[in-house]
């Protein structure tokens, strides 16, 4: 085992639980002063980083969290699993890399409503529908972090998905839903 592989193994095994490496790495460490020094350096880092290992809620904070959640959950409907359909209609199209560009802007006089600008056409979505869209994208690992949108502000979301990710997403969509998606989003293939 060479030194570079040992360094990589040490980096890979370095967590707050210590440095977890295979037995052959330890054998190398006994014979290599340079790698042993790096191992000791990482071990010292584990000690230095230890104070932030377990940051816990106080009992009061935990109670506040549970009470707040209970209250919020009562006011909030659960999302239905709207995107769990089977479909194959777009499989061929999704075989290539795809970039999905979605623009949102808030209607100036419509607090609570968002306007989806697809091809610069104003399409209004309710807050619930918008949340469903965002939730769908977040849950399906699309590479984007949606900006939360304040009424009156303009914002945009750009998501880039690879062909593999696109297949994963569209595997579970029905024809109806894919049509909806195609109608309402700008899809650049």
């Amino acid at each position, binding site marked *: 085992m060479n030194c570079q592989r040992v360094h990589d193994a040490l*980096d*890979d095994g*370095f*967590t*707050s*639980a210590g440095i977890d490496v295979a037995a052959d790495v330890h054998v190398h460490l006994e014979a290599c002063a340079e790698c042993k020094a790096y191992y000791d*350096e990482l071990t*010292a*880092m584990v000690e*230095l*980083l230890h*104070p*932030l*290992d*377990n*940051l*816990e*809620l*106080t009992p009061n*904070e*935990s109670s*506040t*969290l*549970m009470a*707040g*959640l209970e209250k*919020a*959950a009562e006011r*909030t*409907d*659960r*999302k*239905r*699993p*709207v*995107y*769990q359909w089977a479909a194959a209609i777009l499989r061929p199209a999704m075989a290539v890399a795809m970039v999905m560009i979605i623009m949102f802007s808030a209607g100036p006089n419509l607090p609570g409503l968002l306007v989806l600008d697809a091809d610069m056409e104003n399409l209004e979505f309710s807050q619930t529908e918008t*949340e469903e869209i965002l*939730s*769908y994208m*977040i*849950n399906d*690992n*699309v*590479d*984007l*972090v*949606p*900006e*939360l949108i304040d009424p009156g502000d303009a914002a945009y979301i750009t998501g*880039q*998905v690879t062909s593999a*990710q696109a297949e*994963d997403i569209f595997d*579970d969509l029905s024809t109806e839903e894919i049509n909806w998606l195609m109608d309402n989003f700008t899809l650049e293939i």
Partner: protein
Amino acid sequence: MLDRAINGDKQAFTSLVRQYQDRIFGFIMRMTANRESALDLTQDSFLAVWQNLPGFRRDSSFSTWLYQIASNKTINHLKKAKREVPLADNYDAPTNSAGPDDEYERKEQELLLTQALTALPNRQRLVFNLRYYEHLKFHEIARMQGISVSAVKTSFAEALKKLKTRLGGK
């Protein structure tokens, strides 16, 4: 328990929250360095979990999915927060039963660490937290963030290098 929570059992969901609340709070606290924000974001994250559980498809483990939601909430918060003072200046550790000297020393150590962590760029901080403190695998972080494993490893290595420098290591 997860199946029951997915099917709307609030008691099962409460058990899930109790099981994961400290991990999620700790993760967000290390990201934001602000106790009040961390508590709010923890609540927001679990509320999003409750709302979205019916659509949870088990493509990843529940805990990875939970970290993904918490990561998104936290990064959104960090992006939105146009801070005029550094995060670490707002750092507020909880009090505990230790003596005043111990308590002072502990808070000093936490502050030093928090300053070092919050000085990292968001992605490096996120990757370091998820890997080092939360023990997620590199490929899980890569999938969660939609980036390559090598990009995750590079972010982690960069973060580690900066932390070593800032914390007085080599």
